């Protein structure tokens, strides 16, 4: 029976030849990634209750990103507990304040095609950009994985999305996802696999592929997936790891899919999601003129090196509007260092950007940069649920990094193509 890539990975992890959609199977986990919020503080009491330790410390990656740096007694306590857990469990892969988990994980060479990976965070589908089956789980599920090295999964079907055409000026992977959220809805993924294929994907760098898979979460998919190719292999080699057998981890040509959608991006313009859902997306013209108090480049979705480059293209030689706050939290320490070396950070800060530590911070309403009552923000993040970035009455719009930077300059939402040569 012809198998999808997702089925092949699940079957391999379950130790069987093939699996069928709908079947519940128990899989051995190749890698478990967790962070300071859903990680040690939540799993440690469960492991203690069960009287067991981590099943295989080499297969666990722990990353502090949600409460970094500590802003109060409680976040300091959570981070202290995280560090002590890493030491007590002898975890060789603990990245403390090195950036957001979904970015740091592949950056340090932990992902390659064919792996079955769980992440203690809902944006774990990001890892699917590397041809892995990686999905998000809660803390109790994670404790179960840490105790046993396995977890159950109901074999998903695959929804294929063919992306075709070249991305026009001022348009990025983020716009593809906002357009898909509007078209398919936040439950369009129906907890199945959303797999991206097509000529646009083949031409995209890994960072943009990660944005597509990252926001499979906003489509309600279990995960996003992109089969590996030479671009994938190069990225993994550059991260100091072995990409393994790329040719093995591909779809069978005639593998059945539940549905196929085609999106031609050649005619796509910048998209903006209005409050309070990524599915409230439309062309930037629909929301242009909306006054903003804050513009935020941040999060696993929209603050990687490529995203910082996009913002810099708009901001070069320009200034942030008076009365508007422009906050930038690069996705990882490595991306921040590269952006410092290539002059990007200078462009941002000369324009008036306030640089923030790498971390989840304002996106999730945890750290610095949250909103007051009735304030309006545009962000390069993935979610604009009511109250997520602070006060219940605050409004969050979502856009690509060009659009966020353009809003920072104008003090209102504007079509970023006005600022691009």
């Amino acid at each position: 029976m012809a198998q999808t890539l997702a089925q092949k990975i699940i079957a391999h992890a379950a130790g069987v030849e093939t699996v069928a959609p709908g079947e519940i199977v128990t899989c051995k986990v190749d890698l478990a990634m967790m962070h300071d919020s859903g990680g040690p503080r939540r799993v440690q009491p469960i492991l203690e209750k069960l009287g067991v330790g981590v099943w295989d410390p080499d297969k666990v990656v722990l990353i502090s990103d949600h409460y970094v740096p500590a802003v109060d007694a409680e976040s300091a306590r959570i981070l202290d507990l995280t560090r002590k857990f890493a030491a007590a469990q002898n975890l060789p892969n603990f990245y403390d304040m090195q950036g957001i988990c979904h970015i740091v994980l592949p950056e340090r060479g932990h992902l390659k095609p064919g792996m079955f990976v769980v992440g203690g965070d809902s944006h774990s589908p990001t890892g699917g950009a590397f041809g892995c089956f990686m999905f998000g789980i809660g803390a109790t599920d994670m404790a179960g994985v840490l105790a046993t090295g396995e977890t159950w999964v109901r074999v998903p079907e695959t929804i294929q999305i063919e992306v075709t055409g070249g991305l026009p000026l001022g348009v990025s992977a983020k716009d593809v996802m906002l357009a898909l959220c509007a078209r398919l809805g936040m439950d369009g993924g129906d907890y199945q696999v959303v797999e991206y294929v097509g000529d646009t994907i083949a031409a995209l760098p890994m960072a943009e592929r990660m944005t597509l898979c990252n926001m499979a979460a906003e489509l309600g998919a279990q995960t996003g997936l992109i089969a590996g190719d030479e671009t994938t292999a190069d990225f993994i080699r550059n991260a100091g790891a072995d990409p393994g057998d790329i040719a093995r981890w591909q779809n069978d040509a005639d593998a059945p899919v539940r549905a196929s959608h085609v999106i031609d991006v050649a005619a796509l313009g910048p998209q903006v999601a209005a409050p309070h859902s990524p599915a409230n997306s439309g062309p930037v013209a629909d929301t242009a003129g909306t006054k903003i108090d804050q513009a935020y480049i941040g999060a696993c979705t929209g603050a990687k090196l490529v995203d910082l480059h996009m913002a810099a293209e708009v901001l070069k030689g320009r200034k942030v509007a008076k009365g508007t706050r422009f906050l930038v939290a690069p996705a990882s320490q490595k991306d921040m260092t590269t952006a410092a070396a290539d002059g990007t950070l200078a462009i941002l800060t000369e324009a008036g950007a306030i640089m923030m530590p790498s971390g989840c911070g304002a996106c999730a309403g945890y750290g610095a940069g949250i909103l007051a009552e009735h304030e309006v923000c545009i962000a390069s993040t993935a979610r604009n649920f009511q109250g997520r970035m602070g006060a219940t009455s605050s409004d969050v719009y979502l856009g690509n990094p060009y659009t966020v930077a353009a809003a920072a300059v104008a003090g209102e939402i504007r079509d970023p193509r006005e600022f691009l040569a």
Partner: protein
Amino acid sequence: MSAPEIIDRGIIDRAKVWAYGDNVDTDVLAPGLYMKSPPEEMAKHCLEIVDPDFVPNVRPGDVICAGRNFGMGSSREQAAQSLVFHGVAAVLAPSFGGIFYRNAINHGLMALVCADAPKITAGSHVAIDAVAGKVRDLDGGADYACDPVPPYLLAMLADGGLVLHLEKRFANKETA
């Protein structure tokens, strides 16, 4: 009192209904502002953005009937845990956020896929048989179908969630 004590083999005799719409997200169930707080403090803010009456008035054994994609969003299991804290016995919805569904089962909260859940009104009463896949509106008299909970997951629910399920598994290993 916690939900698992009420569920008893997947059968709920009579439960009061709280009704909500589509896409009730995890930031509504467990607001990010309180994520540093212990679960019992977080639970005080459950659903307050959409329904300030829920926390003061919900009683152990009540159930939630909601629209599509209940629990969408974050992986934070405080979303499910807060409902368990208030003794919510089950959530019925046409579909669930996938991570929320897992988190609910892991905490012993019955999550039932029921296409007709949005038809059931707030304040009415229902009887549920999760094994047979039946929901009865005791006030309106209508009978609805729900997807039966698969045996693999029912075993976990019957043990009171994943932790108690694993505790049993490790205990069996020791005595074997």
